[in-house]
């Protein structure tokens, strides 16, 4: 019996009619809908129980305490331990996988080896002089660097100071105390007069001032509206680069109003106020506010001798809520600009910003977890975020590494053949500081001499932005020119 076309139609008809009484269409529809809901090619989080661990952020000298959310051996989330983190910090755990991550030694932009780098460094040490540059003195690793410099003939140990520390140098000169031991006691300050200092943009550690503000009053004197100026309780418009003039005018006003005693600046009140572009009445009002709202302190972005003198007149130096000295601070070290004019080589540890290299160094050995900056000299892959023990220089406390560094990475300590010493908690206490102003400092004020630009450019971030902060940078929030964290 040969089936006819009619038979085939009947067969098909039966199949079609009854297919709806089988799971075929329904099950396939269901599976197809599920298939469209979770595409298999979408990246998925690591599986594994979640646990929280504590650590510290090593991105900048603030060393914020971290609570790290860990899953399957990886960091999957961060939050601040004693307060919030900065915009960079919240995405820091992504940075270890940044496309610019450095995992092989590079020499003048070409891949190289650790052996070659070590040989080159030994040769440089033998020829001398060599500087070991530390971006964050006072850590366990800093001791290793210092010891290496001491036992190696011709080697020097140098540190990088933050702009905040540099701005305190004129105070250190007047008070006769090393700048490393000075600091602002902002936690007790009632009023801050900021002379163009980017207080709320990450000054003195990313979130320190944010945490204290708005319990503290900020008056911002500046030429161009900044984020701090936007948020400040009061904003004073001054001419560009006239911070020292305003300080001198304020000194006159304090003395005129008998709110302070001491020497006067050579420049007259009227002249200084005119140069600063501020009305005389406003200067006097400001001076009265500064005196009435004590403890108050004047902070400038740059090292201005006039501002240091004003602080002394105001009684802010050595007073609670002003500029104070503490013990236990790192021992003095050579600053970068105190290094000799020519160096055979410089070794920069990973806390040194990319573009801070000693000017006279013939050869640079730069530890970094990420590629960036110019590629001259040796680029040595360092452990990344949470991949290395982190010391807090202020307390000496140590956070152990939480993540495994990738192969090919070495710490600066290991490169120098040293071993990280055990953590040594530091007793940090404020010590008495008395300071009198004998004469108004004669150093020339920082005007529009190009130093403004030099100072702001000096502290570009040492690290790349994590990709999460790319969003932040692409938004219209950030000023043109990108992610400057500290001025």
């Amino acid at each position, binding site marked *: 019996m040969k089936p006819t076309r009619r038979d085939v139609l009947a067969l098909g008809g039966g199949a079609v009619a009854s297919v709806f009484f089988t*799971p075929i269409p329904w099950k396939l529809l269901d599976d197809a809908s599920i298939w469209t809901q979770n595409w298999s090619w979408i990246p998925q989080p690591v599986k594994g129980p979640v646990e929280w661990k504590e650590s510290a952020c090593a991105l900048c000298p603030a060393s914020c305490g971290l609570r790290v959310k860990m899953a399957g051996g990886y960091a999957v989330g961060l939050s601040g331990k004693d307060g919030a983190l900065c915009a960079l910090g919240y995405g820091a755990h992504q940075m270890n996988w940044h496309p610019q991550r450095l995992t092989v030694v590079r020499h003048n932009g070409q891949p190289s080896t650790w052996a070659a780098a070590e040989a080159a460094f030994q040769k440089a040490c033998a020829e001398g002089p060599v500087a070991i540059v530390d971006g964050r003195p006072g850590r366990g690793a800093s001791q290793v660097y210092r010891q290496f410099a001491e036992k190696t003939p011709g080697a020097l140990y140098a540190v990088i100071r933050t702009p905040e520390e540099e701005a305190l140098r004129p105070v250190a000169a007047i008070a006769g105390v090393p700048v490393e031991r000075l600091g602002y006691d902002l936690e007790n300050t009632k009023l801050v007069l900021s002379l163009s200092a980017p207080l709320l943009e990450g000054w003195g550690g990313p979130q320190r001032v944010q945490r204290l503000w708005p319990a503290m009053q900020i008056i911002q004197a500046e030429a161009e509206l900044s984020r701090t100026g936007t948020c400040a309780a009061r904003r004073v418009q001054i001419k560009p680069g006239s911070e020292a003039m305003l300080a001198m005018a304020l000194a006159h006003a304090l003395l005129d109003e008998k709110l302070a005693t001491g020497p006067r600046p050579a420049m007259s009140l009227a002249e200084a106020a005119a140069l600063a572009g501020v009305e005389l009445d406003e200067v006097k009002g400001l001076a009265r506010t500064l005196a009435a709202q004590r403890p108050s302190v004047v902070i400038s972005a740059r090292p201005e001798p006039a501002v240091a003198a004003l602080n002394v007149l105001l009684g802010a130096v050595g007073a609670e809520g002003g500029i104070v000295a503490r013990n236990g601070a790192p021992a003095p070290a050579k600053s970068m600009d105190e290094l000799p004019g020519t160096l055979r080589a410089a070794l920069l540890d990973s806390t040194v910003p990319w573009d801070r290299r000693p000017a006279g160094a013939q050869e640079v050995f730069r530890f970094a977890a990420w590629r960036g900056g110019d590629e001259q000299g040796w680029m040595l892959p360092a452990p990344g975020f949470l991949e290395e023990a982190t010391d807090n220089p202020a307390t000496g406390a140590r956070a152990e590494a939480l993540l495994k560094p990738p192969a090919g990475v070495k710490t600066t300590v290991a490169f120098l053949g040293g071993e990280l010493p055990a953590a040594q908690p530091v007793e940090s206490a404020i010590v008495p500081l008395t300071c009198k102003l004998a004469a108004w400092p004669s150093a020339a004020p920082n005007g529009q001499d190009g130093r403004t630009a030099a100072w702001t450019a000096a502290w570009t971030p040492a690290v790349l932005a994590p990709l999460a902060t790319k969003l932040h940078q692409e938004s219209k929030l950030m000023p043109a020119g990108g992610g400057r964290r500290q001025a």
Partner: protein
Amino acid sequence: MIRGLCFFLIGVAAIQVAGWVGLPKALYVTKAQPFEYRHKTHAEKSGSAECDGCHTLGADGVFAGLPKTESCAACHTEPQGKSAAEATLVSSYVKTEKETPWLVYARQPANVRFSHAIHTKRAKLACERCHGKHGESDTLRPYQENRISGYSRDIWGRSISRWKRVANEGMKMDDCEGCHKQQGFDTGCLSCHR
């Protein structure tokens, strides 16, 4: 006419067989677990048949899921017998400190949030309510994976029609919703999705 009816019925029969018998066979691929594991033996050896002896629930409500290799290594640093499973465990996972890629029968998709804490602690549901007598099993049953969706067959349930399923069968959204509605709990998307 009769002849036509016959062919029609043949068509009906063929598609019914294909749908009820052929489809489940064609739709699911059976995969082998990395190695044999006996819940029963482990319960006997450890002297405890409590699930949360190994599948722990933390104080913060985080369910640990499957034990890690380091838990296995507590006893199985060296093969405990001559079985192939022992050899595989020790050589491939304990020695290399790798996690065993178990195929999880009850694995839900990535966008599903299932809280063991809420269901076992607050609602006091027994593990068997959803996982059946898996803890008393002497062998790991075959893992069947849906070729289209990639899910374990347990999500749909053993029965292809989902008709008259036993209580621990089926973990689709309808199943969750059904129970939640019955018990008067939230059925908002947020409750079970992330």
